[in-house]
């Protein structure tokens, strides 16, 4: 847990520089490609990179290890299964999270299941990453967050960092992991900046992080809702309410112990998710705590997630659908009422 502690509490050291989230991802990719030449990155326009995480990698690793694909998501997502079995360690840039839909069979029915169906004959080290979720009027077909769906598919690890520091360390772990990993960069976080060490480091999958310690209420926040929860927590601090903010960082495996032990101390739970409410990660975590930590709950656990509609285009409509600071604040206060 040192690494975990470090990520949330450590002061920037000499070797750290302020780094954008997408560049932290790139540093992770670069480190993994440098340490293992079986690591290849493919996707649409990965040479120039629409979102940015692969931009410039081609200069160091060439067009065979940073390779543009046709717009054939189902095929290149599935091709990585065969390639991984043949000995590559493919990393796929799906560009935008919504595009996972096009490749869902190859992802959920092939990549996720082949190892299990074969009785463990093969390991499939593959990373599927994308910028995901709302980007600001990206509209319904460019704003989906599929982690709730993919959590229901056994066989995929799911990573969803909220800081540049975590983004780099989790990218390295995701690529080193011998299993298919879905790595989701919540779109709006891409341009956030914080201190990141220059050299490579790994953050283990399945270890959550206490982004802010607190005693009165536990807020589990996912992806883009983490900075929102932290803002709200800091504001409530002034009102004498001590909020603990936990970022699971990986949704599969999920650090249930960290969440349960926090709730055991605070007795109050809010889960805020960067996804539609129904069958969301927020629902899963609330249900998990309700079942395994019922005795420790002093008040009704609260879910804060998107409205159950597609993400609309117009700014005021989009704002109405997505999670706002005030929604989190109200939910926290509700657990204290």
């Amino acid at each position: 847990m040192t690494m975990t502690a470090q990520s949330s509490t450590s002061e920037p050291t000499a070797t750290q520089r302020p780094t954008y989230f997408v560049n932290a991802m790139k540093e992770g990719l670069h480190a993994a490609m440098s340490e293992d030449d079986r690591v290849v990155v493919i996707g649409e326009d990965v040479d120039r990179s629409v979102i940015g995480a692969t931009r410039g990698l081609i200069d160091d690793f060439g067009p065979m290890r940073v390779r543009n694909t046709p717009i054939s998501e189902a095929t290149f997502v599935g091709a990585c299964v065969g390639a991984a079995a043949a000995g590559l360690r493919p990393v796929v840039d799906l560009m935008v999270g919504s595009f996972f839909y096009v490749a869902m069979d190859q992802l959920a029915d092939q990549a996720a299941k082949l190892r299990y169906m074969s009785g463990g004959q093969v390991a499939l080290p593959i990373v599927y990453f994308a910028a995901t979720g709302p980007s600001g009027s990206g509209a319904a077909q460019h704003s989906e967050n599929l982690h709730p769906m993919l959590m229901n598919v056994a066989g995929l690890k799911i990573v969803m960092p909220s800081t540049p520091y975590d983004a780099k360390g989790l990218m390295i772990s995701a690529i080193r992991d011998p299993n298919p990993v879905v790595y989701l960069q919540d779109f709006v976080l891409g341009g956030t900046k914080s201190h990141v060490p220059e050299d490579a480091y790994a953050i283990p999958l399945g270890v959550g992080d206490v982004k802010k310690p607190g005693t009165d209420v536990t807020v589990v926040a996912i992806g883009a809702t983490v900075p929102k929860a932290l803002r709200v927590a800091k504001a409530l601090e002034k009102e004498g309410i001590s909020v603990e903010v936990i970022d699971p960082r990986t949704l599969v495996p999920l650090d249930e112990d960290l969440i349960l032990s926090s709730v055991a101390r605070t007795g109050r739970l809010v889960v805020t998710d960067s996804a539609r409410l129904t069958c969301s990660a927020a629902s899963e975590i609330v249900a998990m705590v309700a079942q395994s930590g019922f005795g420790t709950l002093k008040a009704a656990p609260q879910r804060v997630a998107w409205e159950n509609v597609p993400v609309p285009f117009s700014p005021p409509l989009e704002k109405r659908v997505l999670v706002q600071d005030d929604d989190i604040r109200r939910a926290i206060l509700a657990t204290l009422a």
Partner: protein
Amino acid sequence: MTVVDTETGRPANPTATAWPVAEQQHMLRMMIRIRRFEERLAALFKRGELPGFVHLYLGEEAVAVGVCSALRADDRITSTHRGHGHVIAKGASTDRMMAELFGRVDGYCRGKGGSMHIVDFSLGIMGTNGIVGGGIPIGTGSAWGDKHLGRDNVTVVFFGDGASNQGVFFESMNLAAIWKLPVIFVCENNGYTEWTPTEKLTAGRIVDRGSPMGIPGDLVDGNDVVAVREATDKAVARARTGQGPTLIEARTYRWHGHNEGEEAFAGAYRPQQEQDDWRGRDPIAAYGHALVQAGVITQPEWDEIDLAETAAVEASVVFAQQSPLPDPEEALDHLFATTSTGDLR
């Protein structure tokens, strides 16, 4: 030969079959409308006045107009992420389009859709689409619906060269072939899939991809509105008379980036010479001059059209800016229908 327009006695465009003068002028007008609309969007985007991102159609106007001018009002289209030209050519109101792009309540979708989800079912515009290839099965199904219901409507499916590598393109051609559906697959090959040259991603000629299924392919100069129109006329005739689908590949070029603002990060991925050459083949200038040459239109008439369309686009911007933003609570409307007849308020 010179075809004389019976209404006006003026010689019609020699390069074309004998279309009425009014129709030829209309085709020019529609290309100009698209051009001015897109130019205005480029400026608005630069000034940060448009939410989200936009993919402009500048330079490709002859494809949308050549195709849609061959359609009836009750024919249908499905479109793409680069769809403003298609929907304007199919008769969409630039006021309501502009309002939609501004996210206003008078927009086609009351601000819910934006650039990649412009819909007007009353005009047969079944939607631009945010998913590359996403509209191909939908348009194929629209043709199935019309055929099943005994109508003689046709549906045009617009898609790009990049979309020609999506599985649904082949699946839909196969379904259209075996069910002999009145659908026309129009591939706009602008030479690039985002920032990658088409030939690096796409094996062989797209126009040939239907031939194994018995679907005729027609390769046309996408910057020649007359050529596009004539190819579409043939395809429409086939479709309406129950002879099934046609694949048209129109070679063209987009003048602007894949999306506005890409200059910031895409880098230079297209040779300047190539860009200059294509701009030299401006489909509007070419057609306009041909019409002037043929005496179908005078330069003043042409200028008049341009002024009018430019003014109309300005008016659309004003219309959009004056339209209110939707009430946030509207975000919860329109998920499910309560009656089968839509409920556009």
